[in-house]
């Protein structure tokens, strides 16, 4: 029988495990607070995600617990954290795929706000301002006229790179970023690659070189490629870094 004709949702049957969560706790605004782990027990439920689990822990056991969720659907990039040591999106992590002991820590490489909440927004805005992640072109002011044409496949290629959700997993998984806070990371390099292939952006390679032709940019990458391993959107980050490095090496020589 075709699986589609079954009348129940094909989710795993709960074994009602009790999960032990060891959660990093620290409130930097409370002088008495020391970084530490606290443990919470929670009974697993069907289709339970870390979004559901953390909200339940907060509502019933730890009212001061801080974490960030917005879309809870894997598209906004708010909830990245270290889940048993690996960067990932908490909202779409199913408890059924985790062992009975789960350690949760805030994403490294970003300013801590409290507990599992980090300031990725500030970091990303800084990166955006530094790399100027917007279309540089002559100002168009008449939008009554027909739009400029673009090759259909070119638009699709741009979107391919634009799917980045600035979650910060690539920074958390990056050796260089941990050593060099100014490193723009895969998120920055990929975004510039996105603008480089966009025919609407008139920046030259020499201009890109000015911002990423150094150890804080594309030459800082040690090609350990944790970024690609942990990217929740499965972006081709290694390829984009290589593409930018070739272009920047050529621009540097010229």
């Amino acid at each position, binding site marked *: 029988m075709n699986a589609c004709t079954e009348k*129940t949702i094909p989710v795993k049957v709960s074994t009602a495990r009790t999960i032990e969560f060891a959660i990093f706790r620290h409130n930097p605004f409370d002088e008495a607070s020391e970084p530490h782990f606290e443990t919470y027990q929670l009974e697993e439920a069907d289709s339970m995600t870390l979004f559901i689990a953390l909200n339940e822990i907060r509502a019933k056991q730890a009212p001061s617990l801080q974490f960030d*969720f*917005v879309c809870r659907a894997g598209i*906004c990039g*708010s909830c990245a954290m270290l889940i048993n040591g690996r960067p990932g999106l908490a909202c779409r992590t199913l408890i059924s795929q985790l062992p009975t002991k789960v350690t949760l820590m805030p994403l490294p490489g970003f300013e801590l706000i409290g507990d599992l*909440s980090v300031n990725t927004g500030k970091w990303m805005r800084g990166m955006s301002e530094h790399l100027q992640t917007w279309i540089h072109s002559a100002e168009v002011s008449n939008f009554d006229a*027909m*739009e400029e044409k673009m090759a259909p496949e070119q*638009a699709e290629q741009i979107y391919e790179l634009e799917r980045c959700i600035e979650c910060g997993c690539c920074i958390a998984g990056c050796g260089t970023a941990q050593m060099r806070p100014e490193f723009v990371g895969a998120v920055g390099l990929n975004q510039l690659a996105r603008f480089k292939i966009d025919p609407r952006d008139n920046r030259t390679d020499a201009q890109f070189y000015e911002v990423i032709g150094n150890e804080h940019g594309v030459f800082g990458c040690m090609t350990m490629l944790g970024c690609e391993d942990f990217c929740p959107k499965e972006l081709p980050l290694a390829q984009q870094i290589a593409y930018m490095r070739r272009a920047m090496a050529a621009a540097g020589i010229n």
Partner: protein
Amino acid sequence: MQTIVTDALIIGGGLAGLRTAIGVKRRGFTPLILSLVPPKRSHSAAAQGGMQASLGNSAKGWGDNEDVHFADTIRGSDWGADQVVARMFVHTAPKAVRELAAWGVPWNRVQKGDHKSVINGEEVTITERDESHGLITARNFGGTAKWRTNYVADGTGHSMLYTMSNQAIAEGIEVHERMEAIALLHDNGRCQGAIVRNLITGELMVYLAKVTCIATGGFGRIYRVSTNAVINQGIGTAIALETGIAKLGNMEAVQFHPTGIFPAGILVTEGCRGDGGLLLDAKEHRFMPDYEPEKRELASRDVVSRWMETHIRNGHGVQSRFGEHLWLDIRLLGKKHINSKLREVKEICQYFLGVDPTESLIPVRPAQHYSMGGIRTDYRGESPTLKGLFAAGEAACWDMHGFNRLGGNSVAETVVAGMIVGEFMADSLTTEATLAISSTAIDSQVNEVRDELASFQRSENNENAWQIIEAMQSVMTDKVGIFRHGEQLAEAVTELQSLYERAGRIKVSDTSRGVNPELCAAYRAKKMLKLSLCVASGALAREESRGAHCREDFPLRNDKDWLKRTLTSWSPEAASPAIDYEPLDVMSMELPPGWRGYGGKERIDHPDTPTRQAEVDGVQAGDADRFAKQQQLMPFTGCLPEPFRGRNARLSEELDA
């Protein structure tokens, strides 16, 4: 206390707020955006399927124009919309798409030649013109006569939001992230900024502004099952209500989207059905043609959601341990299409359901999705009662959606409203807007906020904020949902009133500095309960069915008695909202009330309808061109800011001329 002064305070960093700020800035004023989250994480990012604008470039959109988009929008609204505002919207939407294209949105483009597509369950070939190649293409959405929804795969909102946010950064617009406006400052009937809580440090701050715009999105989280992001609690709408001066419009008009995945309620786009996906029941029978022979799966959302629930009530739902649901079938669209144009849908199915939609059916059931209601504004986006307070996007009842919004018209509204309202805010800054609030008024309003926050720490309090929010969400989903009945609505109002009283006794046990999530839940609970009471009371009072508001005890649309907009206010001393109404004038409508083209055909007509219809028919029968006819029926161009008045160029009109 820190006080920050700016020309224009924009509350909300999604598409509407960002575009409004850009407009203000380009006119030489200083905007400042407050955002709960980094702007790129706003709920605008969740719009998957696309943005309606009548470019008419693709074969199935050929012949589209503002008139067709306007008629679709008014029919979708079940004649609840403000027709002048809808006209302003459809006229500006093509400019908005083109502006975003210039700023970087990689809109999917027309590919010339033959394409396989699926329409009404059957494979068809669509041939695109050579001349259209490379122009922005469109897909089909519900309730539309033409394929009009421009898109970027199924990440349209994401691409639009990233582009808009980057543009705001490029223009040097300041965004204060993780800031929550928890009260509006006002004096002498004029809004003068907001009292704001820093969601990192927990400190209160004062932002003073000559004009303020609320662009905080919808309030879906007053429901238990909602596609909305967790930040969509309607706090921006609530603080406008709490002034006692600004009013909310049509709060009972709440949209339920047909395809929330079951049971999590996460959205899968209408594009699934627009691209040819089908709705199936437990026997895998395609049931929508049985109810809606004309539009089938692609009637408006209110209609499709009601038929789905009806079909489940009739015993055709799929049983599961979480309750009953139906199936969405997109397998027939093929792997290539799903892997490129519906990849977010595919990811959502994989991660949250553990299924591959190229091979399996998707369990779906309608879920709360959109708030047509919001802060009542005039066509300029300003509150008619609280001067200096503007609103844009889902937070506003600008009122282009009436009682039901069409898919693809909401991201379109965010940007279009941002363009228009930004200009009117700048006009206001140029002419009348001043900062004239006394420090006594500021102090007394800040003290009220401080007192309220402190009240949650009283030792005798004994209620839990999260439990109260959960109870509220259950009342709303169970009793103020898709099908409504007077008895249940009356129960809902009573229960919400009791929850509201209990919310005054919420206990916050955590007293440490910082954001204090328990305190956030406490003050938000009270505000959300006020909104819930507005929705439930408005729904109880409105004794008819219109758009998404469906009363089983009053099943007909009643234009004779109910062709009017609900206005809700809440005076600071009151324990419940006050409701009054604003009539819609049939005699000035370009499209007089009639049958929508889907859904029920019976209704109670307004006495003016035949007279106005005869007038409209007379004009339409004349020889004038479409612009002249439109101008004669309902002039609107003068309402638009000057930069947006030009006619939109269209390939179809150039070639067919």
